[in-house]
C-alpha cells in the first residue's frame, strides 16, 4: 500500500487536516505539539487505498528534538508528502518545504489556514508559487474542509523537482526571494484579538488575566457540572431508574447474593445511589450520574482554552514558578490535561524536551493532580461539608505539587532546559471541531472507564460479602487508623483506589466520616497509587525504573502528607 505523509511545522493544522482527509478522528488543538506519536489513517484515491500518516510537527529535517527525529525517520518510509503550510506564516514554513524538495520524494503543498490570510492583510500568488516550487500548491482550510477535495484530486500530480542540496543560508536566501515574489503584505490595524494577545503576555496585565481565566473556568465547570447533576442526572435516575430497580429488587426477593451484587443494600427500603454499592445502582450512578457531567464540563472548557490558544500563554506566565520545581512553563499543558484524566496527560508529557522533565511532570501529575472523575466525587462529597473543606483539599494538593516538585528538582539528576516555544495567535474556535473533540473525549471516558467502574463495584460487592476486607482491614489498621486517623473500613476505599479513584472516593460516603476525616481521606486517595489505567501509561512512558521511582515517591509522600494532615486536623 502506498503511504502518504502529512508533514509541516508544528501547529499548522495537520491534525485537523488529517481528520478531514481520512475521516479518522484525532485530537487537534491550537498549540504546537498536539500530535506526539504518529497517527495512521487511510484514504481512497480513485480505486486505490492509500495509507495516510499524521507526522509530528517539525521545523526542519535536521533533527533537533524528539518529534523531529520521528519526523525525519518517517520520511524514509513514505511515497508522497503532503506538505502542510500555515499560509499566514509562509516564510518560516517554506524552509521545510525546500528541504523536502531537495529529497527524492514527490511533494504537494497545501496552504492551510487560508481563510485567515485575508483579514491579516496577506495576499499570496499561488500560481506563481506553484511555478517557483515546481509542485502543486492548493489553498485549504482544513477546519471547514475548503479546498480539501481539490487537494485530494491533485495528489497524483505531486512532483519531485530536480534540486541540488543547499546549505542553510542558501535555503533561507531562496525562501526570501520566493516570498518577495509571491507575497504582498498590506498594512492593517491591530485587531482586538491581537491586542488581547499582547496583553495576556505582559506580566502586569497577563497575570490578572490568567487568574481571571482560571477562576472563570472553575466557576463554569462547577456550574455546568452541578447543574447537570442536580437538574438532569439525579431526576433522571430518581424518576426513571429507581422504579425499575425497585421492581427488580422485589423480583430478587429483596435479599440474597444476586440482590447484593446487582442492587446492593437498601436504606429504609429504598435505593441510595451513593451507598447501595450494587452494580446496577451505584455502579451506574457514579460514572453516569456523578462523574460524566463533570467530564463534559471540564473538557468543554479545556477545549475552548486549547482552541483559542490560551495555554501556551499560561506556560510563559508560569515559566518562572515552574522552573523552581524543575520544569519549564510548557509542563503546565500536560498538568492541565491531568485535571481531566491522567492518561492523556502523561502521554502529553512527550511535548517536553528532556527525560528529566517528563519524569518530574508525570510523577507530579500522578500524585498531586486529581482527575475530573475524582474531582467530581470530591466536590460532591467534601463540598457538602462546606467550601472551606474543599479549599483544604485543593490547597493541600497544590502544596504537595509545589513541595514535591521542589524536592524532585533538587534530587533528580540533570537540568531542565529553558523555554523556547512558538506562541500561536488567538483563534476563534470552530464550534464543529470543538464539539467533535468534546465528543471524542467523553466517548473515550465512557468506553474506557465505564467497564472498569462496573467491574470495581462488582469486585467490591463480592469481596464485601465474602468478608475479605475485614482481614485486610485488620492488617492495615496501624497505617490507616494510626497514621491517617481514618476508620479501618476506609482501607476498602484505598484498595479500590487501585482500580478507579472515583469509586474509591465514593466508598468514603457510607463511612460517616467527619468533615476533617473526609479531607484526609480525599487527599490520601488522590495521592496514593495511580488508578490502573494511569499505572499502565506511567509504566509505558517512564520505563520500569521511572515507574519504581514514581511509586516510591508516591507512597512516601502519601504517608507523610496523610500523617501531617491527621496531626493538624484530627
Amino acid at each position, binding site marked *: 500500500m502506498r503511504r502518504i505523509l502529512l508533514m509541516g511545522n508544528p501547529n499548522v493544522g495537520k491534525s485537523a487536516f488529517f481528520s478531514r482527509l481520512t475521516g479518522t478522528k484525532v485530537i487537534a488543538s491550537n498549540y504546537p505539539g498536539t500530535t506526539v506519536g504518529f497517527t495512521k489513517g487511510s484514504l481512497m484515491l480513485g480505486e486505490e487505498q492509500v495509507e495516510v500518516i499524521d507526522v509530528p510537527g517539525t*521545523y526542519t529535517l535536521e533533527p533537533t528534538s524528539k518529534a523531529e527525529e520521528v519526523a525525519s525517520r518517517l520520511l524514509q518510509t513514505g511515497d508522497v508528502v503532503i506538505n502542510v503550510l500555515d499560509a499566514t506564516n509562509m516564510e518560516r514554513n517554506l524552509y521545510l518545504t525546500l528541504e523536502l524538495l531537495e529529497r527524492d520524494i514527490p511533494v504537494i503543498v497545501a496552504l492551510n489556514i487560508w481563510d485567515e490570510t485575508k483579514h491579516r492583510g496577506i495576499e499570496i500568488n499561488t500560481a506563481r508559487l506553484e511555478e517557483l516550487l515546481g509542485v502543486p500548491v492548493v489553498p485549504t482550510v482544513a477546519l471547514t474542509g475548503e479546498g480539501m477535495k481539490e487537494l485530494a484530486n491533485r495528489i497524483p500530480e505531486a512532483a519531485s523537482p530536480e534540486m541540488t542540496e543547499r546549505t542553510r543560508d542558501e535555503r533561507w536566501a531562496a525562501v526570501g526571494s520566493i516570498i518577495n515574489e509571491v507575497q504582498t503584505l498590506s498594512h492593517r490595524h491591530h485587531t482586538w484579538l491581537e491586542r488581547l494577545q499582547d496583553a495576556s*503576555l505582559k506580566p502586569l496585565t497577563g497575570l490578572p488575566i490568567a487568574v481571571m481565566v482560571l477562576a472563570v473556568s472553575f466557576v463554569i465547570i462547577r456550574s455546568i457540572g452541578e447543574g447537570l447533576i442536580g437538574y438532569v442526572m439525579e431526576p433522571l435516575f430518581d424518576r426513571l431508574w429507581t422504579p425499575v430497580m425497585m421492581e427488580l429488587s422485589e423480583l430478587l426477593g429483596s435479599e440474597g447474593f444476586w440482590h447484593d451484587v446487582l442492587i446492593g443494600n437498601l436504606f429504609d427500603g429504598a435505593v441510595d445511589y451513593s451507598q447501595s454499592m450494587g452494580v446496577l445502582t451505584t455502579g451506574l450512578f457514579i460514572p453516569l450520574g456523578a462523574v460524566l457531567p463533570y467530564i463534559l464540563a471540564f473538557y468543554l472548557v479545556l477545549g475552548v482554552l486549547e482552541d483559542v490558544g490560551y495555554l501556551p500563554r499560561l506556560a*510563559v506566565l508560569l*515559566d518562572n514558578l515552574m522552573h523552581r520545581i524543575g520544569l519549564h512553563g510548557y509542563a503546565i499543558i500536560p498538568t492541565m490535561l491531568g485535571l481531566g484524566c491522567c492518561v492523556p496527560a502523561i502521554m502529553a508529557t512527550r511535548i517536553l524536551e528532556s527525560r528529566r522533565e517528563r519524569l518530574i511532570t508525570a510523577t507530579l501529575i500522578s500524585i498531586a493532580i486529581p482527575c475530573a472523575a475524582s474531582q467530581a466525587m470530591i466536590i460532591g462529597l467534601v463540598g457538602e461539608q462546606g467550601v472551606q473543606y474543599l479549599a483544604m483539599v485543593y490547597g493541600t494538593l497544590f502544596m504537595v505539587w509545589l513541595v514535591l516538585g521542589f524536592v524532585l528538582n533538587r534530587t533528580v539528576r540533570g537540568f531542565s532546559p529553558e523555554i523556547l516555544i512558538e*506562541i500561536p495567535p488567538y483563534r476563534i474556535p470552530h464550534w464543529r471541531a470543538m464539539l467533535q473533540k468534546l465528543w471524542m473525549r467523553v466517548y473515550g471516558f465512557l468506553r474506557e472507564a465505564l467497564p472498569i467502574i462496573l467491574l470495581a463495584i462488582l469486585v467490591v460487592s463480592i469481596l464485601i460479602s465474602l468478608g475479605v476486607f475485614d482481614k485486610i482491614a485488620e492488617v492495615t489498621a496501624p497505617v490507616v487508623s494510626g497514621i491517617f486517623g481514618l476508620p479501618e473500613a476506609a482501607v476498602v476505599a484505598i484498595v479500590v483506589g487501585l482500580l478507579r479513584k472515583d469509586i474509591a472516593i465514593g466508598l468514603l460516603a457510607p463511612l460517616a466520616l467527619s468533615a476533617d476525616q473526609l479531607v484526609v481521606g480525599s487527599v490520601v486517595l488522590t495521592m496514593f497509587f495511580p488508578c490502573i489505567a494511569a499505572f499502565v501509561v506511567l509504566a509505558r512512558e517512564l520505563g520500569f525504573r521511572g515507574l519504581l521511582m514514581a511509586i516510591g515517591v508516591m507512597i512516601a509522600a502519601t504517608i507523610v502528607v496523610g500523617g501531617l494532615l491527621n496531626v493538624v486536623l484530627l
Partner: protein
Amino acid sequence: MKEDKPITVRHMHAGQSGKVVEILGGTHLFNRLNSLGIRPGKRITKVSSMFLRGPVTVRVDRSQVAIGHGMAGKIVVDVEEKKP
C-alpha cells in the same frame, strides 16, 4: 537617549524593534532559533518580558516566540531608534 551599541534581547525594552546581528552560543541554539525564524538579519520586536528573570516574548514576522531568559541574553540585536 541614543543607543547605537548592539544589545541583547534581554536588555531591549518592550515595544523596541531591531535587527538580529548574531547569536552567541553553540550550533544547537543557533539551529533551534533559526527554525523559529530568529536568525541574523531578521527584524524582531520585543513584546514583553516576565519579571524575575522570566521568559522574553518577541515577535518575528507574523509569529510570536517565547524565549528563556538565558537564551534571550545570547541574541544580539542592533536596536532601531524609536521615532519621537
